[in-house]
């Protein structure tokens, strides 16, 4: 339970930790978009270099990121596998009726693999270096313009911050309930699938009960303190755009230009 990396925040004081969450969010999403510009080994190499540099800048050891990819590795390999099977072109290595493995398929598979890993790495960088609460503030600030179209941005961000806020509690509680049931002789991850499912009931039920109780307590607590969904709110934490945030976005633009140049000058496979 405690081994989950994706979505976790690691305190630190690196250059990245210090960035404005808005800049990090925009840059993170933008990076994932421009990944699709890459189409040859030069562009992929450049993106890799950039990703590794960003990871280095976070002052968090590489092994933490690698551990973050681990839970997703089967999903990634499955996608890569499909890609290899269903892309045709170039030399054909294996041809068993509907199953053909071709040169382009393999190359595409490798690219897809790297693309996935980079997406995971970069999103992990964003969450590892940004406090969940800052992340919510950032999202809220970025979505603010949608308020003009009657989108309930504040409610969304409240919901988001409440859920993020209680994730550690839920993890804690899960651990506690698991320990308690284990102490009563329950074994997890053993026996047939049906048996394993059955051992989950004694964990999920108490968690549901306590979550519902807590939701009600929280709602009451907010109400007695005069919370109103329609009110206008000022914020305790003010987001401040700094010079380094501008640098961050400039770097993204620079990366885009470099990618476009490498894409057109490099040798494309398709």
């Amino acid at each position, binding site marked *: 339970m*405690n*081994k*989950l*990396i994706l979505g*976790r925040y*690691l305190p630190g004081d690196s250059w990245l930790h210090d960035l404005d969450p808005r800049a990090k969010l925009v840059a993170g999403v933008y990076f994932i978009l421009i990944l699709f510009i890459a189409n040859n080994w030069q562009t992929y190499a450049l993106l890799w270099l950039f990703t590794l540099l960003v990871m280095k800048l976070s002052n968090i*050891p590489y*092994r*933490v990121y690698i*551990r973050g990819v681990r839970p997703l590795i089967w999903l990634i390999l499955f996608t890569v596998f499909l890609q290899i099977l269903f892309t045709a072109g170039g030399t054909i290595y294996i041809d068993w009726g509907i199953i053909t493995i071709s040169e382009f398929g393999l190359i595409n598979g490798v690219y897809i693999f790297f693309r996935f890993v980079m997406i995971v790495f970069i999103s992990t960088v964003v969450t590892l270096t940004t406090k969940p609460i800052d992340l919510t503030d950032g999202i809220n600030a970025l979505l603010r313009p949608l308020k003009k179209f009657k989108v309930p941005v504040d409610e969304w961000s409240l919901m988001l911050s409440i859920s993020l806020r209680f994730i550690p509690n839920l993890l804690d*509680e899960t651990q*506690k*309930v698991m*320990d*308690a*049931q*284990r*102490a*009563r*002789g*329950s*074994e997890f991850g*053993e026996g047939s699938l049906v048996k394993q499912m059955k051992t989950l*009931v*004694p*964990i999920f*039920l*108490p968690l549901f*009960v*306590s979550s519902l109780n807590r939701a009600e307590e929280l709602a009451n607590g907010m109400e007695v303190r005069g919370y109103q969904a329609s009110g206008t709110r000022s914020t305790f934490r003010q987001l401040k755009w700094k010079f380094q945030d501008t640098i961050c976005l400039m770097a993204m633009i620079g990366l885009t230009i470099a990618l476009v140049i490498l894409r057109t000058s490099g040798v494309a496979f398709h």
Partner: protein
Amino acid sequence: MVMEIKLDKVTADYQLGPMRTPRVLDAVDINLKPGTFTAVVGHTGAGKSSLLKVLNGLLLPNNGQVMVGDTVIKQDDNKKALKAIRKRVGMVFQFPEAQLFAETVEKDICFGPLNFGVSLSKAKEIARVAIKQVGLDESLLSKSPFSLSGGQKRRVAIAGVLAMEPDILVLDEPGAGLDPTGKKEILSLISSWNRTKQLTTVLVTHDMDDVARFADDVAVMEKGQVVSHDTVRNTFSNQDQLDKWHIDLPSARRFQLKLEQTTGLILAATCLTEEELADALIKVGLV
């Protein structure tokens, strides 16, 4: 059956995300004699709960070993061995009512015994005994545990652990969050099981009055270490040490010291419980 618990230089920590916590237990040596009632005291984060978890195999030592009876808990223990240990060491967590899940109280109490391979009819029999042991009526067995009051839930949860018929009972603040009467009742029950069944008992608590009233021995924990393990009387006689550990005296003893200070009277004995205090006051003719 009575059981001895022996910890030999036990060191443990937790995996927390990508990091490891600093040692929550640091070379702990402690020896709990069979049938004793030991209170574990110390500040938040001193490692009390971790000590309990180590006894149950929920936290495995990185170094050193834990002996429960003739079984040794080591880092690389397999699940079967751990299960055998968990059968013998009944663990009541803090706020144990959070572990209730079944539709009926009976099913919840039967959960432990069934996991340890007891037949359904035998488990139901045990449940009837267990619910009476915690001072509740048999008629509650058919009710939903979620319909009970807080104190009743707590008792049902404890009954669920007793139903495993452990040789050692380990409890983490079983009285927390209950009203004074409810708390006293639960602790009295625990104390009576300790005496009548020779059940080795380990109790984590913050309440020094409970320690004075119910425990034989006290283990004081500080920064992951057991810094003292002595009888209740010896522990509470050592004022300087207690101050250093920031541990309070039982209220009877505090009253006695204050009285001696203001009146100049010196009571004959060190009074740790209200009863002792009353006797001593009668003796000097104050009441």
